[in-house]
């Protein structure tokens, strides 16, 4: 983010964590190949940035800044997803999603009235 700021790239994120229920609502598409519950948004490892207004040169700079920080870009997916940036921790993603969901729920349980 600091690199983007120093490159004068206007950076804002539209979304980060989505729980499995929300991911499933978002998907709702029987033709999708990868189950929605495998999204890195559900492990807390992905964000969606506002990129539509970025000219190509600025987007390229943002992607290289992200790569330097170890962050991968969804624009390189087989089906490009330009707003998507993530860090893939590897391992069993389903287990990570379950563990992260439980951690988030535990935090929510500590917030009165959540």
């Amino acid at each position, binding site marked *: 983010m600091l690199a983007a700021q120093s490159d004068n790239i206007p950076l804002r994120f539209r979304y980060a964590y989505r729980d499995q229920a929300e991911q499933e609502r978002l998907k709702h598409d029987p033709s999708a190949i990868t189950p929605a519950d495998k999204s890195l948004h559900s492990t807390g490892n992905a964000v969606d940035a506002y990129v539509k207004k970025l000219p*190509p040169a600025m987007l390229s700079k943002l992607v290289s800044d992200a790569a330097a920080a170890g962050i991968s870009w969804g624009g390189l997916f087989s089906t490009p997803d330009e707003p998507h940036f993530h860090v893939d921790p590897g391992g069993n993603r389903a287990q990570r999603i379950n563990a992260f969901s439980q951690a988030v729920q535990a935090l929510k349980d500590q917030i009165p009235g959540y």
Partner: protein
Amino acid sequence: MRRLLPFLVMIGLMPCGVAMGQSAPPGFAFYSDVCYNSQGGDLLGTRIGVMKLRDAVYLFYQDAEGIFGEPQIIALPPHALAGGKLSFTIADFPDPSTFVGTISDRAIKVRLTNGGVGPKGTGVFNLKREALPEEGRFPAC
């Protein structure tokens, strides 16, 4: 959803005789290129509804970069679509965005005037006319 209710009610009251096969957009038309990217788990694209009334052309705009952003409804002058041209400005981050391009009964093709890449990275917003979608159902990208 509540913010969209008046717009949706107006759509419901419109006559159903939407003519196809003409170059000019009909009284009401809905255009979209929104799809679901299963690899990233994201909705991507833009959807625009256009409704021509006597006093103005009302344009509904909403884009998705991961999830849908805030919907916007803007009023254009009554003859804004004359000649198949389309130009409109929306509130946006970090400043307003202006789109210019064309509209027909089949598609909207617009670009951002600042040269932005768009939600799909192509620089071209190529939205095909569609029936109003069933909420929450989108094709795979």
